[in-house]
């Protein structure tokens, strides 16, 4: 093989792992892109730095949607489906949840906000989605979310939808949790 070929070959062989790594780099890049643009309705937690002046607050409606991921048998619903709220003020909403099975289960709720450009303005001070929920068979709970919609919310947005999807994340291999083969409802 001549010298030129060796040089080309070396360059190309370096390019391959770089492109492989680029594939993985797309994962954080995707999140960064969503964060910068506020796309995807993802809510990113950031310190609330702006002063909490409430004089230019306005009234908007906040709607709640709850969805069960496939195979998730729990009852999961908002206590109130719509709330009238003031921007720049803290509000607390609650969700009702019940483990309808006869085994101990662990759940995780994942939030999403629509329209997506409202996501950056919805700040959650406290949310059940920050942690996992472990419920005994038949146990019920009322889960709170404390939130604020900042005054910076674009004025054309009058209605925000906060949706939660609840996932079953029970580790069925874990012996401390009850056995597996139980009925759904």
């Amino acid at each position, binding site marked *: *093989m*001549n010298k*030129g*070929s060796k040089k*080309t*070959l070396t360059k*190309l*062989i370096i*390019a*391959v*792992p*770089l*492109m*492989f*790594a*680029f*594939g*993985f780099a*797309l*994962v954080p890049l*995707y999140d960064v892109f969503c964060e910068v*643009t506020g*796309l*995807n309705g993802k809510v990113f937690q950031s310190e609330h730095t702006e002063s909490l002046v409430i004089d230019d607050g306005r009234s908007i409606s906040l709607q709640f949607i709850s969805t069960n*991921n496939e195979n998730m048998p729990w009852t999961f619903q908002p206590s109130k489906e719509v709330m009238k709220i003031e921007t720049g003020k803290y509000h607390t909403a609650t969700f009702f949840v019940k483990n309808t099975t006869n085994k101990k289960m662990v759940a*995780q709720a*994942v939030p999403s906000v629509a329209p*997506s450009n409202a996501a950056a303005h919805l700040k959650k001070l406290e949310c059940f989605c920050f942690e996992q929920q472990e419920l005994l068979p038949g146990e019920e709970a009322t889960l709170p979310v404390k939130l604020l919609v900042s005054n910076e919310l674009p004025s054309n947005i009058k209605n925000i939808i906060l949706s939660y*999807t609840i*996932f*079953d*994340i029970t580790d069925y291999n874990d012996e401390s949790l009850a056995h597996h083969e139980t009925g759904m409802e």
Partner: protein
Amino acid sequence: MSAVIENHHEDHHHGPAKGITRWLYTTNHKDIGTLYLWFSFAMFLIGGAMAMVIRAELFQPGMQIVEPEFYNQMITLHGLIMIFGGVMPAFVGLANWLVPMMIGAPDMALPRMNNLSFWILPFAFFILLSSLFMEGGAPNFGWTFYAPLSTTYAPPSVTFFIFSVHIMGASSIMGAINVVVTIMNMRAPGVGLMKMPLFVWSWLITAYLLIAVMPVLAGAVTMMLMDIHFGTSFFNAAGGGDPVLFQHIFWFFGHPEVYIMILPAFGIVSHIIETFSRKQLFGYSSMVWAMLSIAILSFVVWAHHMFTVGLPLAAEIFFMWATMLIAVPTGVKVFNWVATMFRGSITFETPMLFALAFVVLFTIGGLSGLMLAIVPADFQYHDTYFVVAHFHYVLVPGAIFSIMAAVYYWIPKWTGNMYDERLGKLHFWLSFTGVNVTFFPQHFIGLAGMPRRYPDYALQFADWNMVSSVGAFLFGFSQLLFLFIVLKTVMGGKKATAQVWEGAKGLEWSVASPAPYHTFSTPPKID
């Protein structure tokens, strides 16, 4: 094949080894090209048999022949085998045979890697096909293997699928590296970059695309593997991941992949139209620039496959315009081909017929692609048979017709024998009719709302589906005629001259037919 082997042996004192080891240990670019071409033909027939199962099931509404689960496995394997086993290895085979001869090089730059990149392929497809016999069946999530269908809800055989995709990727990357190193360093003196035959140019660009995106595909399947077995959550929303991320990564690979399967076809068709028009190709440098711009644009259009995932308006508008922009260089190519034929003294031998059908039918596929690029229209067309019609028009009478054209055009050089022109023309007309009867009606049922990937359909789609199935059987069985023609040509036939075609230009036509086992051991003189 034995007739060819003996012919070669007469010609040259340093001929190929005898028996099976010739093929196992070979580092000769012509042998490896032949292996690739036969392998892709075998895969084409297997993938085609699966298409026959699909069209037989869709012949009438209702469930007739297979179970829905098996139907899903058929559509998945049909797509994977045709793309990774049929079209891509066929182009690599053509590159192996032709690139060294076209640039006046004695062989590929990395002959042993060439052997390795071919011989891992049969294992990849053995693994993939063996999943049909595993518990839970073969992969059933479509060739695009979207998460979570391919992760959370996948059959256990998905791990074998991932491994086989890794092997296919490794094979493609090695093949591509070989092509780039060969073209960049082994051109005979006088063959400047802008003097290279267009097939060589098209493969140089294709190889760069392969090196850029096949590792990304490997990354995507690796993430799947980690999600399935190692508890990560790249694509699992419950763990903080995002299934839409999978689609972004997949199509970042997938769209350049589409051009990987068409650029070499552009090169082939340019040669054939030039030869049979007996004129110089119109607009050589604009052809090169058009291919380069298509390749670059292919990296910024991927989300047009994802218009319905809930992209923001700005992104949809960007991807719509970027996609439509591709029509400009593609249009340049089509007009150049037409201008090449203008006032040429054209004859219609089989390669020319396939090349002409390519130009017309690929343009139809391109136009339906433009329709799909329109965001509001795509909301309607997405995941319907209109999409199926579109990509089959660019892949079957596009990529596959160009491969068949190439085989008819260069087989006299490979075997030293002319193919049977009458049978070749018959094969063309059967294929041409079959392809259009199969896929044209799918535009209609797609626009009427028939979704893709289902084993059953509503009654109003019954008539066109039956027509489509009849066309598919015609197309499928006429490929057995192709096999017969190729075998007959390999066995014997009218002896071919060195130039073979009256209007043929290029270094590969300056060596004897069949091409001796070693060509251009000393670089040719270029005037």
